[in-house]
């Protein structure tokens, strides 16, 4: 399961996509919208993607994990558009026969998503906005 979605992410769907009686361990990671970042109060976030390349990169991560941890299945879903506080921006589920692989694959997936998948996050504050990772900010 690989998805870029404008809809709310349901962890149960991620779990169902990878679970199975051949696996004894399932690790799930959820990134959620936090109310503060580097000392500033965050009101909401907006995510934008280069969709076809982002989907390709997510699929590469999925294939890479299946090769590095045989028997491990992952589901990778990233939300796009505007998100309120507490909402899930990214969801990763990894099921494996054993827990070492489930944890390692889940961790690897989120690190790779943050490194190579073309998705961008914009923070909205009471007095401005900022594309995270860019030096500039502006008052809206």
């Amino acid at each position: 399961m690989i998805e870029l979605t404008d809809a709310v992410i349901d962890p149960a769907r991620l779990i169902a996509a990878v679970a199975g009686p051949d696996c004894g361990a399932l690790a799930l990671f959820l990134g959620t919208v936090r109310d503060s970042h580097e000392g500033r109060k965050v009101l909401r976030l907006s995510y934008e993607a280069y969709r076809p390349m982002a989907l390709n990169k997510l699929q590469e991560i999925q294939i890479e994990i299946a090769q590095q941890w045989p028997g491990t299945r992952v589901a990778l879903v990233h939300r796009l558009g505007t998100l309120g506080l507490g909402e899930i921006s990214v969801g990763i589920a990894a099921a494996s026969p054993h827990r070492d692989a489930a944890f390692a694959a889940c961790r690897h997936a989120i690190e790779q998503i943050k490194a190579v998948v073309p998705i961008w996050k914009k923070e909205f504050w009471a007095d401005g906005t900022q594309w995270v990772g860019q030096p500039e900010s502006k008052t809206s």
Partner: protein
Amino acid sequence: MPMNRLRIKFFAAVRERLGVEEMALEVAPGTTAALLLERLRGEYPQAAPLLATVRVAANQEFVEDAHVLGDGDEVAIIPPISGG
């Protein structure tokens, strides 16, 4: 000399600064990713600081500075990624 036609896509802070999501551009054969960025920085000085932080993707793969862009390529200007 026939020129190569590129489709250039912009995202996030760069897209907002330029006010454009996509443009068609004609470049001389042999134009590399680095040369394209240099040209964009020259033509859009208001986005030059942002364009100093980007990577280039051609046909949905990241490419090196020295990568030569081909006719018909879809070129994406990729600001620092911040998904997750």
